[in-house]
Every structure is written in C-alpha cells, then in structure tokens.
C-alpha cells in the first residue's frame, strides 16, 4: 500500500506548483507548448469530470462547450473587434448559459440516452456552425488575430494563461467537492432516487454541475482559439477528444479533484512517445491503450497504485466487472 502522509503530500504539491510557475524560464519552446497542452487536457478533463465523474452523467457531447467558447472568442475578435479578455469573459458566460439550457433539456435523460443525446447536441451545433459561413467561416474555419509579441514570449504568455485557468478551475473544483454541492453530486451518482427523497434537488444540482464544467471547458476553448489562431467546427466539436478525456479520467481517477491532472500528464506523455515513434499507428495504439486500461485499471492508476499492484487486485477488479 502506498499512502503519502499529509505533510509529504503538501510539500510535494507546493514544489510541483512552484516548478510549474517557473517552468518557462528553464525549458525550451517545445516543452512549454507541450505542458500547455497538458494543462488544456487537464482542464477539459476536469470539466468532464464534474458532470461525469462526480455526478455520473457521461456527457459524450461535452465538446459543445469547447466549440461554443472557442467560436465566441473567434467571432467577437474577428467580426466585432473585441479584444481577447472581454471576449473570453463572454465565452465563459456562453458556457454557463449553454450548460443551463442544454441541462434543462437533457439532464432528465439517464445513462446511455443522456450520453448519446449530448453527443447529438454537439453534432447538431457543429453542423450549424459549419453552415453559418458568413459568421464563422463555415467548414473552412476561422482565423483569429495573433497576440502581439515575439513568438517565444507569446508561447510563454499562453503557458501562464492556461496555467491560471488550470489553477482556478482546480481550486474551484476542490472547494466545491468539500461543500454540499460536491456531496450532493456524489449522492446523485450513487443513487439518484435516494438522493431525491432525501431532500436533494437533483435537477438543480445536475444543471449547476454541468454548467460549472461547461464554464471551464468554454474558457479553455476560448483560450485555445486565440492560441492556435485557427479554428474549425470539425476539430472544435470532435468526439474523439471526449473519448480521450474519458481515458484521462480513467487513468487519473474520475470523481477525484487531482485525477484529471495526473491523467493528463500520463496520457499526453504516452501520446508524445507514441507520436514521435509510431506516428502512423497513433490512433490504433490509442485504441489498444483504451482497451488495456479499461481491462486492467478501470479505477484509475492512482487508485491502483494506492491499493498496491498485485495480480490478485487485478483479478478481483476484473471479477467485479465481468458478466
């Protein structure tokens, strides 16, 4: 059994935080970009985590928030000449409103129905944006203005912007998990009917959860749009990303606060290795990876490490999940 006591954990945590804070000063552009991407994945995974990991609603269409956020920033900056930060602010609002509206419509559905209906929503939105060529550039995409400054400096700027969102969203999630909202979501996931008769307004809490996750995801989308300066509906609403996020949650542990970050590091790390060596097999390896992970460590890597890596544990886990 591997457990870290409080002091050690806190020290490591602070050390990691400081390391991230000074990272751009000691690393090259390539690594800064890589870590920024890891932060992005972690934020997106956390956004999904709140509705899926904590509340138990597998939102396969969660990229709808990413796309809405990204396009809000894109359209505001290109068509209305609004600067980045106000646009980002609006994209956050868009994220929350989308969460509320979509939530009111879809959160009454359960299980698979919810998962795929949310995917349908994302696909429908993708198609709509594909067709609003005048506004969004349609399938050919939208090009945003670039941030002023030298490429290396811009790179570092985006590192810190993404890092800030990471810290804020994770802190908010931590705070939420220790309050009534967090417990309500856990109760809903465990047994929604019981939660209901116990005095938990399940509809309200579910909508709040999805909107919070939507907020993080939309803001991330807005930052991504300005960072990459080019967005198109196909990538902004891509379902394969959500599957990747589920794998990240599986790796790091869903329903936990830090899980998305651990998972993102592990996943993107493996991705980098595979990409650089086995480029043409990349997706195929992702497929195998998904299968292996679900088979052997469905509770997440952290949980498996904590319980101890043993053949017995693996066998027990499989036994719990098999027919």
């Amino acid at each position, binding site marked *: 059994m591997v457990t870290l006591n409080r002091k050690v954990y806190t020290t490591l945590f602070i050390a990691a935080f400081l390391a991230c804070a000074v990272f751009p000063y000691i690393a090259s552009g390539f690594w800064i970009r890589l870590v920024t991407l890891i932060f992005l994945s972690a934020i997106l995974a956390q956004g999904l985590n709140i509705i899926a990991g904590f509340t138990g609603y597998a939102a396969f269409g969660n990229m709808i928030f990413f796309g809405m956020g990204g396009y809000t920033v894109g359209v505001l900056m290109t068509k209305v000449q609004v600067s980045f930060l106000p646009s980002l602010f609006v994209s956050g609002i868009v994220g929350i409103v989308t969460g509320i509206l979509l939530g009111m419509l879809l959160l009454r559905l359960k299980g698979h129905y919810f998962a795929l209906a949310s995917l349908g929503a994302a696909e429908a939105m993708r198609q709509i944006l594909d067709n609003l060529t005048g506004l969004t550039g349609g399938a050919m995409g939208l090009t945003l203005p670039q941030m002023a400054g030298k490429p290396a400096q811009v790179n570092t700027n985006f590192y810190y912007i993404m890092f800030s969102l990471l810290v804020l969203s994770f802190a908010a999630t931590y705070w939420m998990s220790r309050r009534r909202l967090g417990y309500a979501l*856990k109760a809903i996931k465990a047994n929604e009917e019981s939660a*209901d008769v*116990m005095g938990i307004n399940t509809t309200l809490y579910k909508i709040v959860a999805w909107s919070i996750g939507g907020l993080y995801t939309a803001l991330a989308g807005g930052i991504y749009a300005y960072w990459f300066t080019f967005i198109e509906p196909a990538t902004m609403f891509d379902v394969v990303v959500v599957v990747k996020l589920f794998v990240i949650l599986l790796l790091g542990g869903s329903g936990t606060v830090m899980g998305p970050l651990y998972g993102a590091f592990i996943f993107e790390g493996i991705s980098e290795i595979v990409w650089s060596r086995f480029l043409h097999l990349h997706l195929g390896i992702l497929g195998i990876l998904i299968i292996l992970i679900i088979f052997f460590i469905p509770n997440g890597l952290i949980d498996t490490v904590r319980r101890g890596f043993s053949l017995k544990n693996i066998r027990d886990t499989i036994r719990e999940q098999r027919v």
Partner: protein
Amino acid sequence: MNKEPILTGQHVSKYFGALRAVDNVDVEVYAGEILGIIGPNGAGKTTLLSMINGTLPITKGKIFFRGQEISGMRPYRIAELGISRTFQIVKPFPGMTALENVTLGALFGRNRERDMSRAMERAAETLKRVRIEGKEYVLVEKLNVSERKRLELARALTQNPDLLLLDEVMAGLNTREIEDIMALIQEVNRAGTTLMVIEHVMKAIMGISSRIVVLHHGQKIAEGTPAEISENRQVISAYLGEKYSRGMQET
C-alpha cells in the same frame, strides 16, 4: 392524539392507463400515531406511499401536509417539509460506508447540518439508535439484510422527520430481527415521530399500529383499530378468500 390530522389525502388516485392502482382513497394521519397500511399484494400500498412522498405524481385528488398542499411537489421539496421514507427494496448509496450513507442524510433536508463533522456526529448517533454499532466504516455492500434495512431507516431518521413512511421494512427479516425492529419503531414513535407503516407481517403490524387502513385493488375497504380490522369480514375475504370468511361466520 390531536384532533387535526397532520396528513390528509382526499380522493387520492393513481391511474396507469386503464389500471387503477389507487382508486379514490381518503386517508388521514394524526400526529403521534402509527398508522398501519395493509392489504394483499398489488393493493396499491406502495403506490399510495409514493404519491405522498412525491416519487409518483398523483393522477387525481389532493394530499395535504400540515395544511399545505403537497400533491404534485417534487420529492426533495416534500423531504424538506419533514416527510421521509424508506423503500421496500432498499436503496443505499453503493461504494460508501454506512456512516457516509447516513451522513449524507444529515447534510440535506430540513434540518441539514452546515458542518461536516457535526453531520457525521449526528449520523453516528443515529446509527447507534438503530443498533448498527461497530460497522460504521463498513461498505454498505458488505452489510446483511437486517443491517441494510436499519441503515435505510437511519438515513431517513437522521433528518428528524415529522412523518416517516416505512415500506415493508420487515421484509426479509427473521423473527428476532422483526421483534428488534418493532421495538425500534415504537421507540421512534415515542420520541415524537408520526409513522405510516406498510407491512405484511400481520402480528407485527397489528402489534404496533394505533390504527389500520386496509387497501384492496387500489381501494380502501376498511379502517379502524387492529381489533376491529381483524374481525372485519371484508378484510378476511380479501386476504383469504370468500369461502374462508363465510366459513368463519359459522364458527
């Protein structure tokens, strides 16, 4: 017992298409009493309970709790007004310990604790009340039937309800466990909680109820004290058949 009922159901009905699961039932529950609900399987007992706590929407009729109309309210709102219930097939929160299950009960509802540690304390006390000692940190999946039933009861109790609805809480228990839970129910009642209890175990329900309501095919066919009910021909007929009750007349 007070004169005014704390719960009133007027012409309460639940139709599933052509099926009248509950048909025009009037019911009153007085503060401080234990009202027993009996009837053959399929009589509509659980359906009636589910309409009271909001799990099932009411088709016709109205239900009032303390003068306020609660028919049509969502379950969580009714819980916040002071009505708690247990389920026939228990619905604990899987993957959590007994203490965690009950703590969640203490964190929500009308008397919710603001503070996590106080919620846990209250939960621990409630667990003691239902005599689950030493198993607070055991996962619910590992508890036996009797313990799970008492856990479900604890989760409802920890919210200090004014009205507690119990749905066949004795199902699956052996004689000893039934006696224990009967005593527990009476303790809860003495401490001030009004109860509506659905039960099949005749000796138990007759023993603890102050009044009894009998349902059959969705309708109320009798109401009265346990003594009155046990001699009511219609009730006997419903449970044991026409012939038996006719036969009884001759004795």
